[in-house]
């Protein structure tokens, strides 16, 4: 079976590199970028099953990214990370088809479980 392709987007480079490596250890085909626009470029040139993006980023933020992906790549599942999930954000995310929210700092096992469920089409 093909490994799940995950794109991790966060403006903190240290975070991105560590999460990507940990996902790879757990058998995911993970890549990381540090801004919304970079993520868009990367998605255009390759295909991903899931995008995990931080809500708060300079430039293109997580919600805007979700909105664009919703229009251009409706098949890609989106998981958002947030420092604090304000209810308005959650509401808007739901409308945009965001699968779930995770609160930072993330627990890797929770993320892995969520990714597995997501790609099995359960959610």
């Amino acid at each position, binding site marked *: 079976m093909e490994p799940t392709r995950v794109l991790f987007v966060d403006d*903190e480079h*240290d*975070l991105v590199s*560590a*999460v990507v*490596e*940990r996902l790879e*250890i757990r058998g995911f085909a993970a890549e990381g970028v540090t801004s919304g626009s970079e993520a868009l470029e990367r998605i255009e040139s390759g295909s991903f099953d899931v995008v995990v993006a931080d809500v*708060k980023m300079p430039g293109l933020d997580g919600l805007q990214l979700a909105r664009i992906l919703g229009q251009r790549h409706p098949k890609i599942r989106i998981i958002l990370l947030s*420092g*604090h*999930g*304000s*209810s308005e954000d959650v509401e808007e995310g739901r409308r945009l088809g965001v699968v779930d929210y995770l*609160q*930072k*700092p*993330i627990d*890797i096992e929770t993320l892995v479980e969520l990714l597995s469920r997501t790609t099995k089409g359960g959610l």
Partner: protein
Amino acid sequence: MNDSVNDLVRRVSEPPDDEVRPHLSGSGYRHLRRSVVLATATVALVPLYIMTGVNLYQYRKVMRNEMIQPISRLTLNAKKSLEYFLEARRSALNFIVEDRTFSELCNRDELKRIMTNMNRSHSVGALVDLGLINSSGEQLCYAGPFELEGKNYSDQDWFFEVERHGTYTSDVFLGFRNLPHLVIATRRQVGERDFYILRATIDAEMLSEQLRTAGLLPGDDVFLINHRGILQSPSRRYGEVLTPISLPVPHYSPGVEVFELADEQGEDVVVAAAFIEDSPYVLIYLKKARDAMAHWSTLRNELLGFLAVSTALILGVILWGARQFVNNMREAARRRAALLHEVEYSNKLASIGRLAAGVAHEINNPLAIINEKAGLLEDLITLDKNFPNRDKFLGIVHSVLESVKRCRTITHRLLGFAKHMDLQNETIHLPSLLEEVLGFLGKEAEYRDLHIDLEAADDLPTIESDRGQLQQVFLNIINNAFAAVDDGGHIDIALASPQSGLVTVTIEDDGVGISKDHLERIFEPFFSTKKGAGTGLGLSITYGIVKKLGGEIHVKSEVGLGSQFTVILPVQRKG
């Protein structure tokens, strides 16, 4: 770090003490009440007292006049009748002395006849004897019951007076006969030098007779005195004829003088005095002021009674009114202070919320990096079976990750505290919800042998509210109760609906209790008594949630006896 954040937050968020207190203290309100009572009583009572005073004065004046009038009239009548009595006899003597010659008068039989004739007449009678006295004072001729012929009167007062004035009415005196009597005498001039006197004596008793017949009121004292203050008729008060009396002799006045004075016993008496013309007599009418003014004292007592009753009523109303007024003010001030306190508290929560969110968010990012880096380290060490000192490093990484977890708990709670709560509305059966909450804690209760009692009133309605939030509320409170009680302690949960539209949940424990100082601050964020073990946010969040749900939360506690939290929730959430 926790401590310094707590300090900072506390300094920023604590309101200055004086802002939440009412403006006036208890003694301030007492002072205000006193001032109100004093001012109102002055305004209401002073005019009343002045009016009563003026009324009393006026009434007294009127009543005194009314009392004086009859006394004055009676005294005047008596004066007239006495004057007539004396004048009639003087005139008769004058007529006789002018009409008859000396030789006619100097005849005992003739004198006796004249006296008999006079005594027959009511208007000139009542003579005891009649005598003729020459200019040497010798009684030449006498008609009467005593042997007085040849007596010499030249050294007696009345003789001088007659010699000087022509006609004279004497004081009452004893004279040769040693009986109280008075003399009326008239002189007939003979040539330049010589004269003779016709003298009649009248029993002093006749004067009293005149007073008795003058129609004076019974019970009053009426008598005559002479100008030297010696009784000329008997007095009830001062005794028999010729006794000197202590009453001062009034100054001469042609009419009747009425005045009041204190007698020798200190009792007030009303005195009417009238000088009897052409005589040495002064008529005195004496009445006790108490009797004279009996009506007055009744009226005065009625007026004073009315004043006392009015004063009591007015003071009662004023005291009651002032009390109401000050209580209302106090209540308003208290409500205002409570409202201020609540606004203050909400503001405090809001600003702390913002601060907390900022801090938490900033810390979350580096925390996430630490978490992932340490996690990666753990992954790598786990994968490499030959990693030197593998277990030791894994242990170190594990404790780093545990610490991150603790930090995360704190930042998530801070964020949860700040988060705008989006409330759901569901129909909730509170006893079931509480059982669910107790379910979370079941294991601990079992280990610690805690006795938990849940009792719900039969008529308890279901409520519309947010399930998750309510779970959080009760979890927090019950958690605190768990922390407060010793092993084997009791926690009683009672659900009731004391009035329609409201449901109360009372959670009571027999734990350590909360001191008074702590009780006031228990709902403040970051206030914790669990040294280092709590974030100090639990009850603050609970308070916030209950307020959001349209409810109230109250706490009562006594150190050593336990605490009681009461959550009041509306059956229908408003808004």
